[in-house]
């Protein structure tokens, strides 16, 4: 934990500002399953992007691109809401 912030330098009360949030790589909590996409089936409806409780669906402009596993917890909501079954949860 040597590279983590010391107590004197932490924001008062541990308040997190948007610019600090990306440093917390919550994908480390992911257990069990990882989303895998079959892009040939994707219709780019972006329901997965809308429903993802974190920011783990990445876009290229307005086009589905993939998953940011640094923040994906493996909840499977994206696979569940996908209307064309393009996303599958695969055991790690």
């Amino acid at each position, binding site marked *: 934990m040597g590279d983590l912030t010391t107590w004197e330098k932490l924001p008062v009360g541990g*308040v997190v500002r948007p610019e600090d949030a990306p440093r917390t790589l919550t994908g480390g909590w992911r257990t069990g399953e990882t989303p895998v996409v079959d892009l040939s089936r994707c219709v780019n409806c972006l329901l997965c992007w809308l429903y993802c409780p974190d920011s783990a669906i990445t876009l290229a402009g307005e086009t589905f691109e993939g998953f940011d596993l640094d923040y994906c917890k493996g909840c499977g909501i994206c696979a569940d809401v996908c209307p064309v079954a393009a996303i599958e949860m695969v055991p790690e």
Partner: protein
Amino acid sequence: MTNVRLLTGGEAVAQAMRQVDPDVVPVYPITPQTPIIQTFAKFVADGAASTEIVNVESEHSAMSAAIGAALAGGRTMTATSSQGLALMAEVVYIAASMRAPIVMALGNRALSGPINIHCDHSDSMLVRDSGVVQLFAENAQEAYDLMVMAPRIAEDPRVRLPVLVCLDGFTITHSAEPVALLPDEDVARFVGAYDVQNSLLESARPSTHGPFAMPDYYFELRRQQAAALEAALDVLGEVADDFERLSGRWHGALERYRMYDATRALVALGSTAGTIKDVVDELREEGEPVGLVKLVAFRPFPAEALAATLGRCDRVSVLDRADSPGGTPPLRAELAAALYGSDVELAGHVYGLGGRDLHPPDVRALFAGTADPYVGLRGERCPV
């Protein structure tokens, strides 16, 4: 011009709240705090204060609402006692960790059980380690003064913690005394505007308050909180000096009463200090070198100042109005640590649980070294 009014401690605290005019007061009634919010609610209803009073369904909700209000940018106050504080305790810890500068009047009352409504300090001691500042008043005047000082301490950038102004239930909350009120405009100028940091309502720059802290950050955040409470000792001194310039009355971390050449001293919190002062005066008339150290600040604990003052005594008796079953009562434990390595003989006494009075002859016995460890307890003599 001095405006002296005959007020109970509860009414005096409500007057201070009217003059501070907080933005939000979420509160739930409980004896013996009720006269505070009852009096204050009337001020608000009459238009004498512009506060939003939130009638919550419990003390747990009162403190939860207070955190939200304080972090959104409202100057926030509340009040409670005993079981109310016990129910609120979970959220008191969270208020301190979220660094919410809430001011709370605590009408000290014994914790159940058995159920009781009278004064002791077991409720204060329940949140001893929550990270809040705890200041104890001796009388209605001090309760008023400390309520005026409290927002400045709570909101200081070095502190940003809840401040509890503790006043003995019934003895102070319900007893009428002459209280000198400051002019409204002086109090308004003294407390100034509340400068919130990272307001919850600042939507252009959103912030997450109270985030999850795993083993990688919890320890650091706890240490940061402890440092803020330590800093409150200096801030209290500065605010006390400012308040003295305004009012002519000084309330620092401790008051030394006839301690200059005292060889025997008592240490106490709250209204009992008044009784002890009278006995000190009598004993001084009789030529006894006795004195009192009245603690105003219990958290942060002024250990160095106490050691400097008491280190010259032969014998010090510390009075706890709360017990610690199976261990050492809180004030005695603090004093023993502060005086560790000195030659002072330290005696510990528990007194006044559940509102039992401490009488002047008891104080004489304490100074004489003949008092029981549990002062005023019927039955076999028990060690503290």
